[in-house]
């Protein structure tokens, strides 16, 4: 199988994200960076598929030169190739991003043949546009489903499963196809030490690509107020029992 997995470099989750004073960018002073979590699962899914069915995984990203780190990370967990579409690091809207990625995928396919499967994260952890995957798939004329939490290959068909309130929906897509995966599809492996060291040998290919901005423009970033929470320690040991009873009574449980 030939799989292309698109990833995005985003601030590592867990940290409070501050924005710069002018509201035009994320303040990266204290931030580490990672592959966006849905996409990390996408890489894992791609690697598992090639482990099961043979083939190679190409990881594609668009971003500043530092995004090569995320390509190496993907290589450290089993991806075979890494391709960077370099930008100046400014935030590109989904339309522009999708056009550039589409062009890059076309170039890669011209050189190496079509990808059987394009894997995207359902949405990125930072801007959460939910758009890039579907735009690329449409541009390339590939069938696509999003919100996927299970992938099986059955001959020329991809069977993709997604959760709904009522249970599961299962789609069958003829390859070449595209999917947008969600966290929970798998538990991504950590890189091993050898994997990390091997990833240093990854030759990151660069493909120039650009497109005109789309219709969506960022005006200003702001951080929503956090809901304050307070923990009240009722006590320790048996002495805390009356307080617990009071709380349960207040809640109407008793």
């Amino acid at each position, binding site marked *: 199988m030939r799989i292309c997995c698109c990833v995005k470099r985003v601030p*590592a*989750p*867990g*940290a*409070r994200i*501050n924005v710069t004073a002018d509201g035009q960018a994320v303040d990266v*002073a*204290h*931030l*580490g*960076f990672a592959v966006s979590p849905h996409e990390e699962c996408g890489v894992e899914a791609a690697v598992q598929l090639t482990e099961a069915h043979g083939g190679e995984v190409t990881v594609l990203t668009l971003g500043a030169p530092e995004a090569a780190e995320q390509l190496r990370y993907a290589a450290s967990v089993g991806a075979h190739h890494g391709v960077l579409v370099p930008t100046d690091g400014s935030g590109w809207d989904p339309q522009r991003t999708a056009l550039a990625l589409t062009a890059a995928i076309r170039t890669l396919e011209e050189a190496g043949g079509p990808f059987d499967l394009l894997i995207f994260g359902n949405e990125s952890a930072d801007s959460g546009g939910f758009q890039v995957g579907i735009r690329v798939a449409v541009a390339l004329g590939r069938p696509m489903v999003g919100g996927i939490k299970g992938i099986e290959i059955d001959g020329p068909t991809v069977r993709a499963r997604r959760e709904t309130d009522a249970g599961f929906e299962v789609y069958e897509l003829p390859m070449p196809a595209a999917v947008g995966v969600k966290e929970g599809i798998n538990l991504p*492996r*950590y*890189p*091993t*030490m*050898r994997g*990390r*060291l091997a990833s*240093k040998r990854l030759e990151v290919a660069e493909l120039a690509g650009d497109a005109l901005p789309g219709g969506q423009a960022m005006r200003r970033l702001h951080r929503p107020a956090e809901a304050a929470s*307070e923990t009240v320690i009722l006590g320790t040991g048996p002495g805390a029992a009356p307080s617990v009873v009071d709380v349960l009574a207040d809640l109407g449980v008793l």
Partner: protein
Amino acid sequence: MSEVPAEARCVVIGAGIVGNCLVGHLAKLGWDDLVLLDKGPLPNPGGSTGHASNFIFPVDHSKEMCLLGAQSADQYRHLGLSVDSGGIEVARTPERMDEFQRRMTSATAWGIEARLLSPAEVGELVPYINTAVILGGFYCPTVSVVDSLETGTRMRRIASEAGCRVFANTEVRDITTRDGPLPGVRTVEAVVTDKGTIRAEYVVIACGVWSNRVANMADAYIPLVPAVHQMADVGPIDVLAATNNEIGYPIVRDMDTFCYERQSAGSMEVGSYAHRPILHHPDDIPSNDEAALSPTEMPFTPDDFDQQMEEAIELMDMLGDAEIRYAINGLLSLTPDAMPCLGEVPEVRNLWSAAAVWVKEGPGMAQAVAEWMTYGYPRVIDTHGADVARFYPEERSDTHIWARSAEHFNKTYGIVHPFEQWESRRDLQVSPYFSRQQALDAEFFQARTWERPQWFASNADLTERYGLQDREVEWDARWWSPITVGEHLNLRENCGLVDLSAFQIFELSGPGAVAYADRLAVNRIDVPTGRAVYTPWLTPDGGFRADLTMIRTGHETVRIVTGVFDGGRDEFWARRHMPTDGSVRFANITEQVTTLGLWGPNAPEVLSALSDHRWGDAPYGSLTPVSLRCGDRTIEAELLRISYVGDTGWEIYAAWDDGPRLWDALMATGADLGLRPTGGGVYGTSGRLEKGYRLMGAELESEYNPLEAGLARPRLKAADFIGKEAYAAARAAGPSEVQMCVLTVEDHSDRAGRKRYMQGGNEPILTADGKRITDSHGRVSRVTSAGPGPSVDRYLLMGYLPRELAGPGSELQVMYMNELFPVRVAGTGAVFDPEDRRLRG
């Protein structure tokens, strides 16, 4: 959320291992009105304690670090929060194998069980290690793994039960101070937090990597910088998981790659001190909210760790297939001289530092600070090396802190020679003769910030004159030259000129100056004007706090002359005990006065040639004003008849700006009389040792008193002084249990037939049958100073010995590099000119 109280006797800022243990120890010592603050949540507020690897390797060459580490390990054990996992340092190089011999020596000195292992023996203890890449191991079965967070919680609980109030999630915004009551020193007033202001008599900064930033709020300094120590947790690893234990195998320190491998349940923590120094300003550390993990677990920078991973896999192949599940750029504190910052800060009275302390020393150092605050000086051990007052102003700058911390970070597991010199931040303070000394190819050693010639390569001809050879073994010869022996012999035969401009010189003046000086000093300072008094200062417990010269320079003036290593601490002590009535003024006149030592049998003739007086008959210890003809000018100077090298001559004090002219005149006049520029190797070592003169920080520490050091005068002075009560009690108790002795090395040959030379780095002195020697206080007999005695043709050592072993001729042994060398007690005083004929001219 509770609001903070309006007042407390003592506020401790920081609830990591140090702050928690500090309030616990203070509570044990009777402090009840305590407040403990931290800006983070409990029990892990987000400082360095929270991500520490929590192991203690007990052997350290430094007495202070080793014994406070041992004290800490014992406290963890006493709480039941410690497991003796054992630990092995492995060597990949012959140099490291030699270092292990040195570590065995230190282990013997401090009474720590240790043994050397062959690669196969390492493999028996650590079956997953690649024995093919190591040459051997140094094994300590008492290496321990501790639970620092729970220890902190327990100690905090002890304090809470004694009345300590604890406030988490409380951020310090300011520390306010007020002027006085000591002249020129502010006093701490209050801690301003986001929950209110607490007026406090004492404030202790124990907030690790943030300590300098918090100190800066009070315009004070705790010279440390947050530095990255990378650590990755890799697993799962079946052989580790099978132990069913947090720690089932000995910790391995891969010393030559500066890494460690420490089991943590089913995974391995691989930590490194090998990567490039990565330093951060405290302002660049994220808050608890901003941090993905915790403020001091910063994002991992994998590029810095790749080489360490390769080396770790080489040592333990199984690590290669283990997943990197957690990896951080963990922050810890580094200081400009690799020692902690303990004690009251010089800038603000009652503002204390307990910082730059790692988990391995936390409880012991907290105890030391608690005792310091309670008794006026630590009882557990002398902490002079960690005293925050040791730093000179130049050492408190970020430029200096960063440069020095960057330089020594990679030496954390390095092989550091006892006399190793810094490469960065040199020439910070130089004497007036610096350019002249450079022209004479001086080899400069830096004493804190001051450059001092150790020897002069221009004197290389003296090695031929006296038939001197270099040392046979590189380690012994490193930072040493036979030229220094040549300079010594020339001084004894002719004369030498020693630059003493790094002396730290203070002046007490005013109507209360002499009485105050007497309050500081053991010996009487209320002497006739023009007399110098060599005297200890004592701690309140009667141990050595300082050792210096005080000169009655006038009716209401006393000059204090002390060594450069102790200048900061001695200035602190002198200023902290001053009367508050304005009767005494203090001035640091170091950079106004230059000092030259002119000694040797020809010294009087050299000096006489520059004046109309025939010098040589002045009484010892007298200060005499003099006019000296220096070229076309006459300069005014003072001659102090005194000598730390035990020879005829003077310390000459002159105005700083007159120094070059004085040097030139002396060198020109002395040329025909054999005068040579002479370095610190003679002044601080060979000349001193031949006379048995004690050195502060080596022979003289707070665990010892003047009786034991052989510095007690026949009578106790009438005037009161700090430490008098304890000192009087010691005198009344009869002969001291131990005596400071001078020993001679009787045979220098090691097993390979090479001549070896001890460095004075705490080598243990053993009985003739190889047993450690300790006294009833647990103080161990060890070499405090070592060096050649060229004029007595013996290599000399100093050390405390129990009275029964201290008699002249007593035959003992000294361990050096894990080999035993026979030594003999020469006596308690001078081996050269014991009648002081030369001194008295």
